[in-house]
């Protein structure tokens, strides 16, 4: 057994986290910053955090992830990191020539209390920031929030630093995707395009973290929202945020700063949540939903109805981030699957309330924990086994010990490819999710059914 010390007896814990279902803010900020064209993310703290964040993102995407660090030593930790950051800014602009440096803090620089706006303006006064180049920042102490809020904070920093109101409302629509894959961001753009909307999508990591092999390494890949798009975003006629926790703050900041009205939706995962997204876009664009999307919707529905017998009543355990879990739970319930255990490491009271609402008609007791960990999840699974688990790669230890099929979904996925290329949002993404769910369930059925009951057609 891999997790041989995990027993079914759940003991009360108030201080010890075991096998976390979350990680720290800066990695989310770094990921979001990579969705800004020509941006070099920078970690203001000791160099270990930066090395860890780059490594983890790289393992998940199998793509280069470039970022600088202030490389604090003991001296900087005592006297503050101003000298290190000013020097880092100068070095990065000189050596790597980014358009933007997006600085996020770490636990260390936050505990010291470094004042980033002051340091950035010092760098500007010292002439370390070339003309028409930018340094932006987000505060991301990890003793508050998680990787999800780190992403939200950096997305919001893009608004704080760049969005401008120029008096004229454009026809553009801003879309802020939550902490989703580059493939999902591209799919969100495509769906908007089908509705005749060319969105200002930020952050946008498509074509950054799923780039081609060309024989040339580009420090700054093609993708990402540009500074000029962000500047114009303040004049857009609306902002749509997809994912309340990860995308909501940027959209609200845009509303406050530039009076761009915002629509904060759930992630468009599954039929109903995609319907909500499409419906809002339709109203914003003042158009009919095109046939192309109606067809995709119908295809998703078709797959659901064709395979409903294999989905109905299947018990599922899920671990992930709040925005994903809310939309995914909604999808599972909509196809009559039973989410039995739901765990996120990201704390939040609203989360549990929303999940309870979604599962209120589910004919089964549902365990929910916001601020839980995978150790607790595993114990729940031991007490009440499930037919399928959905979550990140760390779940594979539980999957093997308990012999339960696993669908890899969320962050990080360290041992499979596909997530950065094939979306799980939108109607098509829904079909892909179902395909993966059914593959996992039916492979298991094929493996376990008696020879006499082995089915050719399913």
């Amino acid at each position: 057994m891999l997790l041989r010390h995990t027993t079914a007896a759940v003991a009360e814990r108030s201080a010890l986290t075991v096998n976390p279902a979350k990680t720290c803010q800066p990695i989310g900020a770094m990921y979001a910053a990579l969705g800004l064209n020509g941006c070099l993310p920078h970690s203001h703290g000791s160099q270990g955090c930066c090395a860890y964040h780059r490594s983890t993102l790289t393992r998940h995407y199998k793509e280069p992830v470039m970022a600088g660090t202030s490389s604090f030593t003991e001296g900087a930790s005592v006297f503050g990191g101003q000298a290190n950051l000013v020097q880092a800014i100068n070095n990065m602009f000189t050596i790597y020539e980014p358009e933007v440096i997006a600085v996020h803090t770490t636990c260390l620089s936050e505990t010291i209390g470094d004042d980033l706006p002051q340091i950035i303006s010092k760098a500007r006064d010292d002439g370390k920031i070339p003309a028409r180049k930018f340094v932006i920042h987000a505060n991301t102490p990890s003793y508050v929030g998680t990787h999800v809020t780190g992403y939200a904070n950096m997305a919001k920093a893009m608004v704080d630093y760049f969005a401008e109101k120029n008096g004229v409302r454009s026809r553009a629509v801003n879309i802020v995707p939550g902490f989703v894959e580059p493939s999902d961001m591209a799919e969100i753009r495509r769906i908007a395009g089908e509705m005749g909307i060319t969105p200002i999508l930020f952050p946008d990591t498509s074509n950054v973290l799923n780039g081609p092999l060309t024989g040339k390494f580009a420090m700054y890949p093609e993708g990402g929202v540009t500074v000029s798009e962000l500047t114009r975003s303040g004049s857009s006629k609306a902002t749509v945020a997809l994912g309340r926790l990860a995308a909501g703050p940027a959209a609200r900041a845009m509303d406050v700063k530039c009076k761009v009205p915002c629509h904060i939706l759930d992630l468009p995962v599954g039929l109903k949540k995609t319907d909500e997204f499409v419906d809002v876009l339709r109203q914003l664009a003042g158009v009919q939903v095109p046939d192309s999307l109606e067809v995709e919707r119908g295809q998703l529905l078709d797959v659901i109805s064709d395979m409903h017998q294999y989905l109905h009543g299947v018990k599922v355990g899920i671990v992930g981030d709040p925005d994903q879990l809310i939309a995914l739970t909604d999808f599972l319930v909509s196809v009559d699957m039973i989410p039995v255990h739901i765990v996120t490491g990201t704390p939040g009271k609203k989360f549990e309330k929303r999940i309870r609402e979604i599962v209120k008609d589910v004919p089964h007791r549902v365990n929910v924990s916001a601020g839980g960990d995978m150790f607790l999840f595993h114990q729940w699974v031991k007490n009440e086994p499930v037919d399928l688990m959905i979550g990140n790669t760390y779940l594979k230890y539980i999957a093997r010990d308990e012999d339960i099929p696993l669908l890899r979904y969320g962050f990080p996925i360290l041992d499979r490819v596909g997530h950065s290329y094939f979306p799980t949002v939108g109607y098509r993404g829904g079909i892909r999710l179902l395909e993966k769910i059914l593959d996992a369930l039916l492979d298991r059925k094929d493996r376990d059914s008696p020879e006499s009951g082995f089915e050719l057609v399913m």
Partner: protein
Amino acid sequence: MSDYIEGIMDTECEVIDPVEVKEEMIVRYPTKVARKRAKQIVLNRIGEEGEVPPIQANVRTIPGIITQRGCCYAGCKGVVLGPTRDIVNITHGPIGCGFYSWLTRRNQTDADASPDGHNFMPYCFSTDMQEGEIIFGGEKKLKQAIQEAYDIFKPKAIAVFSTCPVGLIGDDVHSTAREMKKKLGINVFGFSCEGYKGVSQSAGHHIANNGIFTHVVGTDDTVGAGEYRMNLLGEYNIGGDAFEIERIFEKCGMTLVSTFSGNSSIDGFANSHTADLNLIMCHRSINYVAEMMEKKFGIPWLKINFIGAEATAKSLRKIAAYYGDQKLMDRVEAVIEEEMLPVKAAQREVRPRTAGKRAMLFVGGSRAHHYQELFSEMGMETVSAGYEFGHRDDYEGRKVLPSIKIDADSRNIEELEIHPDPERYRPRKRPEEIEKLKAAGLGVADYEGMMPEMKEGVMIIDDISQYETDKLIEIYKPDIFCAGIKEKYAVQKHGIPLKQLHSYDYGGPYAGFAGAVNFYKEIDRMVNSKIWGYIRAPWKEHPELSGSYAFES
């Protein structure tokens, strides 16, 4: 015509002038940065006495330069203590540090090798500090976390690792550990390995060495069975390396008392002081323990290297020569003879495809040196190399130790004062015996470093930056580049394969004889892969718009 062009390219490759390359690498840098980097980029020269030029190493990383390096915590918890299966390692800090070091280093372990079957390596334990603890202190939570870990898991030891904020808010992990040790009656010990200490992972190795030496080594005097009883230091069982070394040891009739720290148990550390000899694999990360054990218990140490079949054979002979025992020498020779057969066959198989190819290695604190052995066994040449966190002695050899200036960053890392143990100090060899061995060229307590074994004119680069990596690749176009996960995909975008030498790209083992064969095959696959030839699409070769089709003619 095409022959002619190839001729030019060949000569062009040969005329790469490293002096110019160095110039080109640093010219872009701001003046102060260039001045500093110039001391960390050195062209190798071997003097008449085997002396090499000095290189600046183990100094601060330049902010913003994009480094490979990690932090002190990573070196302490991640590298040295992480691979021991039966210690509950609690990260005291916010969640990230613990999360990222959770299972990512691929240390393998055989959990059933200990009678109690304890294995906590698949678990991540953290105090997940919140704002309240940052403001009011985290000792209370730490104490409670240790209690909960004890109640749930009943381990025989708990270790606590401090992350950056812990030092700043003034939590005393050591007194907390002492208090809990007394209360629980198991070994509980703490490490002040905050990430900002030192200049790289290296500081963490030192702190880990100190801690394990102070709290564990020498706590169990049971002398186990077996002849030729040795400890293997600095072998972390990535990809199963330690398993292969254990196999060879067993075959040679040698006994491993403990490994620091691959496939390891805390019980092994506790009675490691009963061994005859310490073998150092990774000099950088563990030489402190060897030195302290020599002073306190009288155990000599030898630098060995089990990466490379020839190097493995050489190391086994060195061990046998140390014991000076004919029986052992004969057995070692028999093992080498038998093991080298498949190795030689594998070499013959790959060499026609690998000979003459060029490698670069920028990794760690010993692997950039050790892996050159494997490449040369395949007829491949190392054209540039450097460490991520090595010190001057790892480059130039231990003879430079007296001349290394201790700077402020290193001075902050405690140097334990060690005296002979009044009861347990027992020199394993008399001074004259040691001198005799040294005179015979055995190199007791010595390490010659990487540079003396490398060619003249090759570039040695310490703490290489992303920019320098790109330049090297553009100019030299090596056949393979060895580094870590952060470098991997940037290099491969250039169309050049990168072999990870931290995680082995999830392969291995590469140590010992069987490992060498694995490595030959893997590198053959990588440098001769046809994948890189697909980069140019066919229509780029023939961009003309009209073509003739078979059916037309």
